[in-house]
């Protein structure tokens, strides 16, 4: 029991990201409104961004901007890891782009069917095929 508590205390960032990811996944699977699914997708992608950025942190160190006027050698151990931040800039941009495309598609669907509830749309399609 002691071990589990210390383990959770030392690695709580992973637990947080898993919980967020599962919330997003649950929203995408279960909800029937298309906009709620899109929000779930966004939460899902954001949890992965949180995961990467949390691995870059070093306790007590500062941001990775080295002194401009200094002539001492730079000690890399004094700064947090910059590489995951760069990778996540890309992931954020990709997430925004996907959101834009998803919203455009949702708008087209709304224009066509008049509703954004998946159940109503499926009923619409079934009655169309039945004709």
């Amino acid at each position, binding site marked *: 029991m002691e071990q589990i508590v210390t383990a959770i205390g030392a690695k709580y960032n992973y637990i947080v990201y898993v919980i967020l990811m599962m919330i997003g996944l649950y929203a995408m699977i279960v909800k029937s409104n298309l906009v709620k699914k899109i929000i779930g997708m966004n939460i*899902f992608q954001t949890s992965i961004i949180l995961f990467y950025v949390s*691995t870059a942190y070093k306790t007590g160190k500062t941001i990775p901007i080295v002194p401009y006027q200094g002539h001492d050698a730079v000690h890399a151990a004094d700064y947090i890891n910059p590489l995951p931040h760069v990778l996540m800039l*890309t*992931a954020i941009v990709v997430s925004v782009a*996907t959101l834009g495309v998803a919203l455009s*598609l949702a708008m087209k669907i709304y224009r066509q069917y008049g509703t954004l509830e998946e159940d109503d749309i499926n009923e619409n399609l079934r009655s169309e095929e039945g004709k």
Partner: protein
Amino acid sequence: MVQHLPALLVVVPLLTALSVSALSWLAPRLCLPLTFGCLGFSLASSVGILMEVIASGPVVYTMGGWSSPIGIVYVIDYLSAPILVVVTAVALINLVASSKQIDRDFSDKKGTFYTLYILFVTGMVGIVATGDAFNLYVLLEIAALTGYSLIGLGQPRAPLSSLNYLFIGTIGASFYLLGVGYLYIATGSLNMADLARFIAMPEHSSSTMVMFAFIICMTGLFTKMGLFPLHGWLPNAYSHASPASSALLAPLTTKVMIYAMIRVCLYVFTPAYVFGTLQISNAIVWIAVAAIVVGSLLALTQKSLFKMLTYIVIAEVGYMVGGFFLGNRMGITGSALHIINDAAMTLCLFLAAGAITYRTKSDSFSDLKGIFKRMPFTMTAFTIGALAVIGIPPTCGFFSKWYLIIGGINAGHYGFAAALIFSSLVNAVLFFRIFEIAYFQSPGDSKDHHHHGHHRHKDKMVEAPLSMLIPLMITALSLIVLGIYTGDIVTHVIQAAIPGVIS
């Protein structure tokens, strides 16, 4: 300039796409010639790179001058070079064949369509050529986003199918990103060759982090390639899109994802790890068997040409994944050869179906009656494609199936070999059913025909336009040529692509 070919291969399409995007607002007439020229240049440079790789081995290009593991490197070796040729060739042939269809479907947004087209090809070429795990993710997303938009316009049901594809595709790509993240935390590197070096060390190959990274990466890639049971997005997405888009996406997306799977399994997670330490390859082969059986059976129930072809694509994905995870040289050879062959076969069938839909405006089987007399050339090409899918020599489909079956028997996996034979029989039934409708039934056979004069009028030849027909015949011919030259392709290119440790 020749040593910069690997960079030019990806940069020239990107620059052209941007120029086409700007020019579509300023000088729209230049868009099509620019697109055409760019794809032609890509095809020429990929053939050039293939010649160089065959002559002198893998080509490594460092972007920005920073060598691995600091910067991003492009590695074009025996596995990537032929697939580059296939990707650019498919894109060029499809552009020529679908130009009339593009005029009809996207008349006011042609410039944007061509931009998205070239960006999709850029993404695909980048996925094939890259040597960095994170760069693969970025290019995967470019290809995916352009794919979602290309299939979002078309028939009335296209936006809904595209949105479903978007949801599932995003989950797949995010899982791949998560897998790369796990590998990064475990080892600290993002370069593929560097990761392979780390994973070969015993403290990493036995850690659960790497195992979990493998599972998550593979799940992500399986989702994007449409392996059963994660294939739900594929039939709707490809059958409701405009034929110009689906003839580009169907041959390329799944095959390049399978290439990515092979690249990640063989060159990141080394073969010793995938086939030795992890004991799941047997399970994945059984999943592939299920994919083949389910895909073939569902194809039997379809009444529309495009839907049937998409289920055949799902079954073909099962061939390639199962063949790879057999783990022996024959199986992996068959799988890699089938990537090339299947891209050509799928292109031929989708182009033929697109030509038929262009003339008859519908693709249900009841509207295909007697079409052999009206469109003989199209149906000849369709027949050759069908024979290739069934697996009849000398078309290329026979040879790759042969390698896969021998690989299955060598590995003792008789279920896989039996599934392949079962699928060939089902494909034969599928296509002979279409031949019967197309050849033997005449359009006046329906029970509610009113005018006797009309079906005489319908029997004359209303062939597809020449711009659709010539690429189609070239593709059909290439199926036979690929079959005849299989020996050369296998010995010079594919055998060298597989690492020596595999027996």
